[in-house]
């Protein structure tokens, strides 16, 4: 039984090790954006970052008010 458990655990460990190394490989592969970084592209990406921060702030505010109401 212990041998079986050991096998399952080693398989789980391999799964995580493999995927962590895969994520690292993906990060390395796509480290540099291929699109030409013109003014328009930079502006659009800046807008998206601000937009997402705004949404996160809204959700955080909602969460805080919900917790506060309790």
């Amino acid at each position, binding site marked *: 039984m212990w041998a079986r458990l050991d096998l399952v655990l080693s398989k789980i460990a391999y799964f995580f090790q493999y995927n962590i190394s*895969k994520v690292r490989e*993906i*990060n390395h*592969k*796509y*480290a*540099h*954006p*291929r*699109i*030409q970084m013109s003014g*328009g*592209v930079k502006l*659009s*990406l800046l*807008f*998206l970052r601000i*937009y*997402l921060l705004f*949404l996160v702030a*809204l*959700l955080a505010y*909602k969460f805080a008010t919900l917790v506060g109401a309790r």
Partner: protein
Amino acid sequence: MKLLSKTYYQYRKIWKTIKLYFILSGPGLIVMVADNDAGGITTYAATGAKFGYHLIWFLLLLIPVAYYVQEMTVRLGAVTKRGHAEAIFDAFGSFWGWFSLLDLILVNWLTLITEFIGMTAAFHIFGVPPYITVILVCLLMGIMVLNGRYWTWEKIALLFCALNLVYIPAAFMVHPSIPTILQEGLIPHFPGGFNSTLFFFLMANIGTTIAPWMLFFQQSAVVDKGMKEKDIPWGKFDTLVGAILTIIVAIFIVIVVGTTLKGVEIDSAAQAFSALRLYNEHLGTMLAIGLFNAGLLGAICISLASSWAFGEVFGWAHSLNSKIKEASWFYTNYFITLISAGLIVLIPKAPLVLITLFVQVVAVTLLPAAIVFLLLLLNDKKIMGEYKNSLWQNIIGTTIVLVIVTLSTLYGISIIFPTLFN
């Protein structure tokens, strides 16, 4: 004799064109019809119940919106031979890539839950317990993908698309007044003035027509189908047919519910169709089956969109043309997404209404990013070559993007703060 041979030649030419269309059609038609999923049917049913025929003109406006956004994915997929997730990683780097991928997986999984909610509610009308529906759906979707060919999967999906047309004869069964439909439905106006309720419904209809998973699904399907640059006109035509068809179906749902249940508060399509069974049993039954089919079609596409996206980025074999052994990760991902979403619906007292609302909020975080990336990619000469956006395509595309981003954001905010626009 010459006339006869000429006629025969013309006939052969037309028949050949039709055959070619049937070979190349698929991604556009499936993605558009699947857009009328369980959530979509609920939105259109609620619109019909609340405003009758008065917002049909607005639905018609959504045909070019849906077409222009989706045709860009056809060009991008055919030119780059990459799915949308991989294209974002490649063009914008890993930060935006991970953001899009993880957001897509989350929003797709949540949407898949809503499809299961719709399907179980539809079959519940006939007294089928939810767990039987979930098992049935998982088996059916398993059989569809495990045949090992994209072509077979696509043709089965097209069959389900055809079933989505059930709302068209249903509308004739309720005997609507055609002059009233034309008079009330085709002249642009805001019934009862422009107020917060109307605004919420307009936004909900837009949100239903353009969903993030559609961009990812169609581009991946174009790649999996093996479409090339020369097939782009057919892909665009396929998308146009799909856009028209999906809105026609939406209009017919509005007509059915607008004729029979106008003024009734509708929380879900299942509730509407259950009420319609009292009006006409055959009609209610037909529509409930239509709702199940819509949920199934949505589930088929959404679960595949996630698996394709993961496969593209992680470099796994990710084609429906691959056998299980060749693409084990791809199929594992597909089934985990599917079964886990089905199990959530079976949890007693699971917060299903909250999940349904949360889908819209998460979609709002992904849609603007996905759609802006699409527009930027379509403007990169190095990536798109001669297929990059023209000036007119950019004017139309940018206008649509700005309107969608603004309205979907307001829609998301109105869900988080329901009293804000009152």
